[in-house]
Structures are given as structure tokens and as C-alpha cells.
């Protein structure tokens, strides 16, 4: 008689096979974190499209795919990725990851007085430093993909700036995927920790060749008192990719966080942002732009929690939907009872260019304090017929007029990118995507 065997899920098999080889597995707290994270995932399983925050994201397609971790790209060198990025690596401190693995032959800026390097290498050399951040992390509130990241992470960037240190150049994290003939996944885990009054600009660029791959990244950010971080996220992964990113921000008093995200990939993407304004006078500015063409879907979920008084948040996401593109935005602002004098604004605006595209928007406030200033709104609309007529009456052709209005719609978010070279590169990318003339920023 055969024994009844519970069938293991493909991911469970992959985890069991991969676990002994995953980085820092010899460190007890890391091993524990991986195990508990995977247990959490097994317990909750993949989300469904009908779950809050997952509308239009094809999670079932991710579930159906037999994912294997990307293997280490032997013989790959950082120089190979030189032309794949939007940026010249001389302008920034660049950390390059191919298929989630760090390519180490570029000069790492350790000697400059701060840390920016491969997480797995740093973890190996100095596990205690990171135990504070992750060693005691409760897994009970992790979402499915965050839990998968905790179980499978291989590498990512660790950026640690000491007190009052100002990074002399932006730090550029470039994640490039080169999918093979089987579906491959990568789970980058990033840590950005800024000491009191430290200052940095971090650019996360995600790109890849077409093919079945899954990028499931988690970025955990700790901003000490008065620290300032500008985060720029550019997602332009290839067709067939699933891109999920989760950003968790913990802000102490007087710290300032800005995020400018642009989702322009051929992929189905999801971004989840959680900001905790834990100290008085902390503020965050969250801007995003997503474009969805063809059959892609973009899903944004943000939660900003105001826990202390005089905290401020300004949030704006803009979407452009074309073809059969779909997008969902769910934004939540929570104002705790002790967060008096909170100043919060939350807006989502969508431009619909085709009849088949779909968009869902839901900005929401939960306010438990009484002395607050909160405003929110959402809009779904077509191109303004008055503006189109105005432009045409001044000689703009139909195409030029539409492109000018498209540019105008996007510019509010693009202009929030605080580094000029990045802003121009994004404009260039946008113009390529739409056939838009570059002359718009010429004046």
C-alpha cells in the first residue's frame, strides 16, 4: 500500500532545493527569516485579482508558471551591461545586478566613507549590522510576494550612510534581466538606511530583455532624524515580465522622503508603497506615472500612515491608458489620533486614450485626529477637447496637439524627478514611447 503524499507546490520544491545554496544561509537568523517567510507564503498563498489591492494584476498567471531562480550568470561582467542602462555609470555610484546577481567588477564606493554594495557580501562579512533591521522582523503582516522575497532573496543593494553624511553622487541600482528558455525569477532585497541628517539620491532602474521572468523586489528604507532621501524608480522591463516591487519606508522626525516612479515597461507591474511617518514633522512626497498599452496592467497600492503631529504627505499618481491597457490605483492615508496638524494630499489622475482600456481608482482617508488638513481626489478623463481645439487653432496638427497634451499631462510627475540627467533620460524614453518630439523641453 502506498502512503498518501501531499503534493508539494513547485515553489515549495524550488525552495527546498535552493535553500542550502541561498546566500548567508549559515547565519542562523537569516535561515530563520527565510523559513518563516516561506511558511508565511504557504499559509496565505497567492493573492487573487479580486483581493483588495490586486485588481487587474494577473497573479494567477504568476501562480501557474513554473518559476526557477535565475542561475548565477557565469562569465558576466559589469561592462556587458554598460549600454543597457539609460545612464552613464560615470555620473553615479552604480551597482549592477544581472538576473538579480551582483556584478562586482566595478569599483565599490566603500572607501568614500559610506556603504553601498552587495547585500549578500555585506551580510556575510557583517551579519550583526543587518540583524537589527531584519533579524526580528515579524512575518505575520507580510504579503505573499514580500514573503516570497524574504524566503528567496539572493542579493540586492545595501546602502548605509552614517550621521550627516551627504552622498557626493546619486547611487544607481541597475537591475537587468536576461531571461533564458525557462521562466526565471529574482527577488532583490534592498536596504537603504540613512543616519541622522544624512542625505542621498538613489535611483532604481529595472530593465530587461523580453521573456518570462519575475522580478519581485523589496526595498526597506530607514530614515533617521532629519535624513533626506530622494528615490527615483524607473521600470522598463521587457514583454513577458512580471514586475513587483514593495517599498517600506520608516521615517523619524524631520526626515524627508521623496519618491518619483515611472512605470513604462512592457511588463505587468505592481508597486506597493508603505510609508510610516513615525516622527514629528516628517514629510514625504510620492509621485508616480504609469502607462499601460496593449494588454499590460499596472497596479499601484500606497499606504501612508501619519503617526505623529505636523507630519506631511503629498501624493500624486498619474496614469495613461491606451489599447487594452488596465490600471488600478488604491491609495490610503491613515492619520492616527496623535497626528494632529497633519497635512496630507492624495491625488490620482488618469487619461484614457482608447475605448477598451480600463482604470480603477480609489483614494481613501482614515482619519482619527481632529485637527488635520487632508484633501484627496481622483479623475478619469479623455483629452480635453477645448485644449485640442485651442492648439489646432494655433496651427498644431492633430498628432502634434495630442502629443503636446500627453506631454503636458506627464510633465507634472516627470518634473518632480530631482536629478536633471535622469529627468531628461525619462523624457527621452517617454518621447520614444509616444513618438513625441524632444523639443518640448528645449524652451
Amino acid at each position, binding site marked *: 500500500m502506498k502512503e498518501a503524499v501531499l503534493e508539494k507546490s513547485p515553489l515549495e520544491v524550488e525552495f527546498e532545493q535552493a535553500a542550502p545554496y541561498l546566500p548567508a544561509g549559515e547565519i542562523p537568523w537569516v535561515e530563520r527569516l527565510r523559513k518563516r517567510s516561506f511558511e508565511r507564503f504557504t499559509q496565505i498563498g497567492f493573492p487573487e485579482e479580486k483581493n483588495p489591492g490586486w485588481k487587474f494584476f494577473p497573479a494567477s498567471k504568476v501562480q501557474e508558471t513554473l518559476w526557477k531562480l535565475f542561475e548565477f550568470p557565469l562569465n558576466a561582467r559589469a561592462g556587458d551591461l554598460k549600454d543597457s542602462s539609460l545612464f552613464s555609470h560615470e555620473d553615479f555610484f552604480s551597482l549592477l545586478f544581472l538576473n538579480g546577481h551582483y556584478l562586482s567588477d566595478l569599483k565599490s564606493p566603500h572607501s568614500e566613507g559610506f556603504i553601498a554594495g552587495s547585500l549578500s557580501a555585506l551580510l556575510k562579512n557583517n551579519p550583526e549590522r543587518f540583524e537589527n533591521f531584519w533579524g526580528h522582523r515579524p512575518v505575520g503582516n507580510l504579503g505573499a510576494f514580500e514573503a516570497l522575497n524574504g524566503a528567496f532573496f539572493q542579493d540586492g543593494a545595501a546602502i548605509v550612510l552614517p550621521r550627516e553624511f551627504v552622498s557626493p553622487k546619486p547611487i544607481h541600482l541597475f537591475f537587468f534581466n536576461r531571461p533564458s528558455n525557462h521562466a526565471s525569477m529574482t527577488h532583490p532585497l534592498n536596504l537603504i538606511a540613512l543616519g541622522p541628517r544624512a542625505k542621498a539620491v538613489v535611483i532604481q532602474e529595472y530593465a530587461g530583455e523580453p521573456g518570462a521572468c519575475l522580478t519581485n523586489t523589496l526595498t526597506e528604507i530607514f530614515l533617521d532624524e532629519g535624513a533626506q532621501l530622494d528615490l527615483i524608480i524607473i521600470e522598463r522591463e521587457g514583454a513577458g515580465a512580471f514586475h513587483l516591487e514593495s517599498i517600506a519606508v520608516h521615517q523619524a522626525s524631520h526626515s524627508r522622503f521623496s519618491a518619483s516612479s515611472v512605470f513604462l515597461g512592457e511588463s505587468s507591474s505592481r508597486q506597493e508603497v508603505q510609508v510610516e511617518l513615525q516622527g514629528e514633522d516628517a514629510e514625504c512626497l510620492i509621485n508616480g506615472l504609469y502607462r499601460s498599452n496593449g494588454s499590460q496592467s499596472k497596479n499601484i497600492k500606497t499606504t501612508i500612515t501619519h503617526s505623529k503631529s505636523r507630519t506631511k504627505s503629498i501624493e500624486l499618481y498619474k496614469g495613461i491608458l491606451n489599447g487594452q491597457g488596465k490600471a488600478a490605483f488604491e491609495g490610503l492615508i491613515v492619520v492616527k489620533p496623535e497626528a494632529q496638524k497633519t497635512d496630507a494630499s492624495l491625488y490620482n489622475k488618469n487619461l484614457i486614450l482608447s475605448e477598451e482600456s480600463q482604470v480603477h481608482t480609489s483614494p481613501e482617508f482614515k482619519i482619527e485626529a481632529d485637527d488635520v488638513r487632508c484633501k484627496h481626489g481622483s479623475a478619469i478623463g479623455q483629452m*480635453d477637447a477645448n485644449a485640442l481645439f485651442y492648439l*489646432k487653432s494655433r*496651427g498644431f*496638427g492633430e498628432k502634434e496637439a495630442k502629443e503636446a497634451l500627453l506631454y503636458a499631462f506627464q510633465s507634472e510627475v516627470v518634473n518632480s524627478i530631482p536629478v536633471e540627467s535622469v529627468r531628461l533620460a525619462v523624457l527621452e524614453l517617454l518621447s520614444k514611447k509616444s513618438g513625441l518630439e524632444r*523639443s518640448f523641453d528645449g524652451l
Partner: protein
Amino acid sequence: MLEIKNLCAKVGDKQILKGINLTVKPGEVHAIMGPNGSGKSTLSYILAGRDGYEVTDGQVLYEGKDLLSMPTEVRSREGVFLAFQYPVEIHGVTNKYFLKAAVNAKLKHQGKTEMSAGQFLSFVKEKAKIVEMDEALLSRQVNAGFSGGEKKRNEILQMAALEPKLAILDETDSGLDIDALKIVSHGINAMRSPERAFVVITHYQRLLDYVVPDFVHVLSGGRIIRSGGKELAHQLEKEGYAEFAGAKG
């Protein structure tokens, strides 16, 4: 230059224009006056090529060509200009870019060399002086946050930059205080020339004290019920539209 023959048009089921006839020659300034709802703005929009109007009868010739069959942007490039009653705000596009693209679209259409950014900048700065416009407004987004007067001045600046052959001014005086009215009128007068014609649409006579027309037409109920010289405007102002339309219409 412009010949409107028995122009009839409707919006939805509503017949707005019921047979307009008007001939405008180069160098002339025609004022079209009339009460609210008489069809003044409809006429200007149809001439400029706005969607949503159905021409049911008649014809409009511009320099001998069928104006109504030209796309909106081609009318502009051919020298027809409409100064809007309510200029549109375009957030995210600078006034300078907007003007440069407009001017270059016209130059390209005429087979001329387009202006470079530098050439355009000195060109537009000269034009801005005509309407006493602060150069800072050139770098601002099109009409965004402009006062009523600034918006109207911006319309005249666009006219000055585009140098049209036929300018239609739709209620350009509305919402202007007396100082702004003088500046705007000065801008219009500075553009008067033997080659250029104006159709000035207005509800009130006061603009016509500054921009003195050669002809005044009274539009009422979708028809021109009376035409005359500049003295007609004064008569109209004195008697009021209701009485005028009742007695003479």
C-alpha cells in the same frame, strides 16, 4: 478676403445661424455686435473650425478657397486667427514652446525656414512689448494662473506672433478693466494694415471706442439685421438690443 454666403448652422437640433452674409476685404475692420445668444460666438467658432457645429447651408470663401473644408490647423497656417473669448489653460506646456510651435507650423506650411530657439526668443520678446507683457509670462505654462487681462493679452501676443491675414476677435474686451482694454486695443491697432482684416465680435460698444471699425453689423436671431458705419454702434448702445431688434428686425 472673406466671403460668407447664406451661412446656416446648427448645434444639435438647434438652428443658431439662419443665413449670414458678410464680405470682408483686406484692410477692413468689421465689428459684429449682438445680444447674448444671437450666434456671435458660433460664427467665430465655425470660421475657426471647431467641432460640434453642423453647417446646414451656405458657404464661406477665404481668399477664394472653401474655408469650411480646411482642417482647423490648416486655416491657422493659412492666416486665419481666432482670439478666444475664454483662452484655454494648458498646464505643463510653456507659453514659449506653444508660441514657437505655432509660429514654426505656419512657417513650415509656407515653405519657409523654421526659427531656432534663439531666433524665436528675440522675435517673441519684441512682440511681447506690443502688449506690454512681462517676459516672465513667456516661461509660464500656457494661460495657467494668468489673470483675465493677462490671458487676453496673451491672445493678442499670439496674434502678433502669427501675423494672420484675417483675425477674428471673439469678445476680446470681456473681463478687461479699462487699463487692460487700452493695452489690448493698442495691440490690435498696432497690427492694423492694408493687408490684414479684422472681424471684431463684441457685446459692448466700448472696445469700438479704441478699435474704430469701418463697418458695424448687428447680429440677432442668427441673422445680420442691420449693417452700417461706426455710428451704428453708438445708436445700438443708446437704444439697447431689445428695442433695436424689435423695431428694425
